[in-house]
């Protein structure tokens, strides 16, 4: 045998040996968020939460000795791009699991793609009831609409009892459904809605609507719009000197950035919140603190509830994967899916248990009110950190 042939044989042998040493390959976790476009801010926040969870797991040695690799994509806040990214991650990158997602018009299409490829998808922020009603065994989520509606309904019927109530919604699936479900719930408790209106998110001028509200003598306004809508609406309420007894914005108010943008005008506004550095689920103080510290180190600011949603969804997947490996099973999509239905985690945001349809059984917001630039929990009484100021002092008496 001549030298050349000898070398090629040895080379081949070495290659075979090398591939067998099994340098542990990474576990690919796919993530699709709106990192640009209309929902860029929230999408980025979810992405940050997911990163913290992955960093945490990798710092502890990974899952089953294998490191986690986060493959992130941007859906640009557009459904058709979300579909394309999901196809790419599932079909091309061949990720093992999927997470992330903000707003149902983006999560919905992604969940259908995940179902097609049999890849478990734990969505970080999804509300629409319908997504879990069509038998998608691969779809899970760490949030759900009832978590918003039930505390709001309770708060309105037990604490506020408004005479004339207006419920406004933005023309998006989550907002519309919240308004509808809230109306239903209120009706069963004997409270009727006097004005229900839908507006386009990003409307430039609410003055005609405000005129209508003034004319109908509305005392409590619930607006399922988003931060930009609240900023404009409250400002125009102030300009027109219309002082409702309460203004409740389930989305987009319980955020540091909103309070900063509004200044003193944010006071007395109500909202719902799943988690905040100042109030976490009883018994989760240690986990919450560790999350906050790691987040501060990575991103140099305080985390908010949206970050926590991303963290929670990733934690669920990591726990499920550990569950599968602990049982000595192979890490496949179906095994992880089954594990997800069995896990029970106590996390800062909620006690995470998925029901048969993929909804989180114990997801529930608290009602907060902004007082002196800080959020105070005002409902339920067991978790309250302050008392509600109702009615809101009229604009003339405020500075």
């Amino acid at each position, binding site marked *: 045998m001549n030298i050349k042939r000898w070398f090629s044989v040895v080379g081949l042998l070495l290659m075979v040996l090398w591939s067998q040493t099994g340098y542990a390959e990474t576990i690919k976790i796919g993530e699709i968020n709106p990192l*640009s476009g209309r929902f860029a801010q929230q999408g980025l926040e979810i992405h940050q939460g997911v990163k913290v969870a992955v960093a945490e797991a990798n710092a502890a040695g990974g899952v089953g000795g294998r490191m986690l690799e986060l493959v992130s994509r*941007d859906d*640009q806040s557009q*459904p*058709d791009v979300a*579909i*394309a990214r999901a*196809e*790419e991650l*599932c*079909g*091309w990158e061949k990720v093992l699991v999927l997470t992330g997602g903000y707003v*149902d*018009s983006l999560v*919905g*299409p992604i*969940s*259908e793609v995940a179902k*097609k*490829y049999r890849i478990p998808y734990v969505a970080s922020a999804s509300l*629409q009831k*319908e*997504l879990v*009603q*069509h*038998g*998608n065994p691969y779809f899970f989520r760490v949030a759900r609409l009832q978590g918003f509606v039930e505390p709001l309904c309770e708060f309105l019927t037990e604490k506020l009892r408004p005479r004339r109530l207006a419920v406004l*919604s933005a*023309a*998006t*699936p989550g*907002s*519309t*459904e919240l308004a*509808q479900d809230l109306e239903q719930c209120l009706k069963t408790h004997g409270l009727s809605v006097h004005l229900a209106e*839908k507006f386009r998110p990003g409307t430039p001028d609410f003055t005609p609507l405000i005129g209508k509200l003034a004319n109908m003598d509305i005392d409590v306004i619930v607006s399922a719009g988003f931060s930009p809508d609240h900023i404009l609406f409250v400002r125009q309420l102030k300009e027109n000197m219309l002082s409702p007894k309460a203004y409740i914005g389930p989305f987009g108010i319980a955020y540091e950035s909103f309070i900063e943008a509004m200044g003193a005008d944010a006071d007395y506004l109500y909202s719902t919140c799943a988690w905040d550095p100042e109030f976490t689920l009883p018994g989760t103080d240690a986990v919450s603190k560790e999350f906050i510290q790691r987040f501060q180190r990575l991103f140099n600011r305080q985390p908010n509830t949206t970050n926590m949603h991303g963290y929670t969804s990733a934690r669920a997947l990591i726990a499920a994967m550990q569950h599968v490996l602990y049982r000595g099973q192979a890490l496949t999509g179906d095994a992880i899916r089954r594990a997800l239905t069995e896990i029970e985690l106590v996390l800062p945001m909620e006690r995470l248990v998925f029901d048969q349809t993929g909804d989180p059984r114990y997801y529930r917001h608290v009602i907060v009110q902004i007082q002196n630039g800080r959020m105070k929990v005002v409902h339920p009484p067991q978790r309250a950190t302050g008392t509600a100021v109702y009615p809101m002092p009229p604009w003339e008496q405020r500075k």
Partner: protein
Amino acid sequence: MIKSIKSRIKKLTFADSGLVLVFLALLLLPVLVGYNDYILQVLTHALLLATLALSWNILGQSGSVSLGHAAFFGAGAYGSALLSLESGLSPWSSIFLAGLIAIGLGLVMGLACLRLRGAYFALASLAFVEIPRVITDNWDGLTRGSLGLAGIPGLPSLHLGSWYLKIGSSITASYYLVFVYALGLLGLVGFLFRSNFGLALQAVREEETAAGSVGVRVDVFRMLSLLLSAFFTGISGACYAHLVSYIGCGLVYGIHFSALPMVLAICGGRFTILGPALAALILYPLDQFIFHPLLPAGHEFLYGLVLILTVLFLPAGLWGTIRKNA
């Protein structure tokens, strides 16, 4: 007969052999790409866009440029989705019925707007699409309004005797279904354009007054072309709904589905049969595979650029110019 076939083969041009290659590539695509789902999905979407462009061009053949074809696309998508979700109809039937709904919408639009010519018709179509969009968005009782529709059943299943093929759950099967639809539509469009109907449309487009004076019922032909165009656009919309299983108003009535068929048809060649389809098959994969990774934001500039270049330098479209010089 052998002689005539031989002479036909001699007349085959470079372009024709290119076409044969394209056809073969599409036919064997799943095998060629190793059943890669992502590539198949992109090509399925490209074929669907081809059907959209072909349908648009049926109207374009009569001289009307529509900037609001998403109205029919959305009506078809919502129609079929709602019928199959609420009434449990098989997608075969709901897709067809959705086409009929689109025809209804086309009739309304035609009665209102076909009196307008050229630019004014284009502007009217731009405005028209807002109407079904806002109505669908607000009519919560019927369409679930802004909620969108989720969990739409997949593409229909095929029963042939005891053989049962669930197309919806197989990406390859979905690809072939859309491929067959595209081929069928192509054949139909080819037949139409070469028939007396097509000649009449051409006459209406080029010399309307002259056509009228020789007895061509101009208004009838323009309406027919609009209705046919609406029908197939609606069917494409319905297929889209079953392919992606989740639709919303902003998506299916959006400017994206109004602009693309128009861009593809004009760049491919408004006065040709194959042009629109070829443009879809070339531009969309180009956009998705090459430009999108390079420019995650703004990659759609490609369509704008190609449209501008076509209007300025190649008014007959790419395929139209190739055909002319053949």
